[in-house]
């Protein structure tokens, strides 16, 4: 009896030792990553799916992907986790958070991690316009993942009903106003166009400014041009759409309900992220089209969306694992898949050359509008103290659109605030 017990005990100990060795030998690298969702659709499931595929292909890496809310939430949560000593090795965060993250000494440049020529080439394999928001001081800090541009969605049935050609959407500001006037119904049941001014108003405004051939900030992130004459003109145009031409509701237009408004045919045209494309496609009960934003002096749109960043507080093994994950999530096949499922852009030319995405674009040409618009795109508003600078501009835009201040006054105040905030960095 005692002998039997002893034997069992020995077996138990032996088994434990063996499994422990096995565990030690197969020590998994654990990665925690935060990511935001900023457009409609079951994106968390898609991300979970991608991550699951990665873990299957890499059994020695364990990834925990945490949905953090919107871009602001993701940055706050990731940095808070780091500051509280919790693990976070990489995250998808706003492409424009770059200066904030560098100032907090939170991220590491990819140039410092890549070791082979192949990897260096990989850094250059993405669309250069998309890389603009990820590069500063000669180094690359962010790799594009869920990137977008603003596109113009329009209701072809409404165009037909108003006597407009559904295959030629407005290509200039004048055409937009003219079309809008025809599309706006007198009884208020349908507006001509809607450009949202809550949520991310500065992003929409970046498009208008660019269309007027004006950038909002410089490359070094320490100077803004909010009160340049062309900027003021752009804001005046935005305001006039509502107050003068009456093709848009006056006051602010809510970002979150805009897509619903378009789907409910309360507006014939909407400016929104291409990331909404798949959801619009699934839910539109009418014939719709997608086009590049209209030009004034030239076409223009800011890029948008999130990049992958690797945090500084990571061990060399974690960095290697993180690189693997990022390469996996952004490789042409995955990027193509991601684009088809969401509407975000493929992040590299190679993505658009994959068979699946080529076929998809052939059947649904609107999926390529954002890519084609890249030619005219510019970086999204990003500076040091980016949160405060953005808020100053957002407040100014909302003040002008609600009639509280004139565009010139509002932007003047915003510029003064930005100058005050950025002076220490110049």
């Amino acid at each position: 009896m005692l002998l039997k017990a002893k034997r069992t005990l020995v077996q138990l100990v032996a088994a434990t030792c063996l499994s422990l060795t096995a565990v030690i030998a197969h020590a998994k690298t654990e990665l925690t990553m935060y990511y935001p969702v900023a457009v409609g659709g079951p994106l968390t499931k898609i991300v979970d799916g991608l991550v699951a595929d990665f873990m299957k292909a890499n059994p020695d890496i364990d990834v925990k992907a945490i949905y953090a809310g919107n871009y602001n939430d993701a940055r706050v949560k990731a940095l808070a986790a780091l500051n509280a000593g919790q693990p976070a090795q990489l995250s998808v965060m706003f492409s424009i958070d770059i200066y904030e993250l560098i100032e907090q000494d939170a991220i590491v440049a990819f140039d410092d991690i890549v070791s082979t020529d192949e990897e260096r080439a990989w850094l250059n394999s993405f669309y250069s316009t998309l890389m603009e928001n990820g590069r500063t001081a000669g180094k690359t800090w962010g790799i594009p993942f869920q990137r977008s541009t603003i596109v113009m969605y329009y209701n072809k049935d409404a165009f037909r009903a108003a006597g407009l050609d559904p295959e030629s959407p407005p290509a200039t500001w004048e055409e937009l106003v003219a079309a809008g006037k025809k599309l706006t119904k007198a009884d208020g049941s349908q507006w001509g166009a809607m450009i949202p001014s809550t949520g991310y108003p500065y992003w929409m405004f970046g498009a208008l400014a660019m269309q007027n051939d004006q950038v909002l900030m410089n490359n070094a992130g320490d100077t803004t041009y909010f009160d340049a004459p062309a900027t003021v003109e752009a804001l005046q145009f935005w305001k006039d759409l509502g107050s003068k031409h009456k093709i848009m509701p006056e006051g602010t237009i809510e970002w979150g309900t805009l897509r619903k408004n378009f789907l409910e045919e309360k507006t014939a045209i909407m400016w929104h992220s291409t990331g909404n494309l798949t959801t619009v496609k699934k839910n539109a009960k009418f014939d719709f089209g997608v086009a590049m934003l209209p030009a004034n002096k030239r076409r223009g749109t800011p890029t948008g969306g999130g990049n992958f960043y690797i945090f500084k507080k990571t061990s060399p093994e974690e960095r290697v694992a993180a690189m693997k994950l990022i390469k996996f999530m952004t490789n042409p096949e995955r990027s193509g898949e991601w684009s088809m499922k969401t509407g975000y852009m493929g992040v590299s030319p190679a993505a658009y050359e994959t068979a699946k995405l080529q076929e998809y674009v052939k059947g649904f040409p609107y999926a390529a509008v954002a890519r084609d618009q890249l030619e005219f795109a510019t970086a999204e508003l990003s500076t040091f103290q980016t949160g405060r600078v953005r808020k100053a501009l957002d407040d100014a835009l909302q003040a002008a659109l609600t009639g509280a201040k004139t565009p010139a006054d509002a932007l003047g105040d915003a510029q003064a605030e930005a100058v005050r905030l950025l002076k220490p960095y110049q």
Partner: protein
Amino acid sequence: MNPAMRHVYGWLLLTPAAILLLAFTHFPTVATLFESTFSKGNIVRPSRFIGTGNYEAMMADPIFWKVLVNNFWFAVGTIPASIALAIAMALLVNRALPGRPFLRLAYFTPTILPMIAVANIWLFFYSPDIGLIDQVLSAFGFSGHNWLGDPSTVLPAIIVMTVWKEAGFFMIFYLAALQNLSPELEEAARLEGASRWYFFWRVVFPLLMPTTLFVLINAVLNSFKLVDHLFVLTKGGPDNASNLLLYYIYENAFSYFDTNYAATLTVVLLVLLALMSLVQFFLLDRRVHYR
């Protein structure tokens, strides 16, 4: 028990509570004051003592003043209205009207909901064109309005929603007080031929003063603490028209990572709270009718 031991036992029993309160109430209050005198630091430029620097910046900050004004109007809008409604509800429920349990339930239920859920529900009501209020208005031929997007209507809209949530909560306290009133008072008033209105204003209302004081304190504290709805409704917009002090503190601390400026704002909040409490206790206490 050894009489001297009561000191030891007393403090020992108090220790767990004392540690927690010191850690999360008293120490942070002092620390906030301390932090407000330092500048925002980062890796490149560490934080340094700047005395009143943050306070000067705060005085020159137009958003700070806007936020104070908003808090004022928010308090003025919600407190009298919710108290008046609470008294009315309590009076109605106190009388044996048909369907009393349903009435009580209907008035009190919004209180049980978290503010974030209330905000979600009302966000739909206030949405322009497709929202419920605009739909009802258009059914009657009126044009809709961008309730949350218009700086002049956003604060009133939020006030209406807050009153909806809070009135039922205060009703309960008034109900308790009314049920404690002696029924002879009403008898006596009726015998003397006093009208119901007179009875209410000259007898009931003054007797409800202690409850009103209690409710008032609660309401003022809530008007500073209640910012949950901003996260869902407006994030303080448009152009800070609905921004409130505690939300501004949150933005500064967690969005801009400027904990020092946030501490400065918190000091202002603490001073305001202290002032409110003092005012209420001393000024109103004198007019309260204790039996």
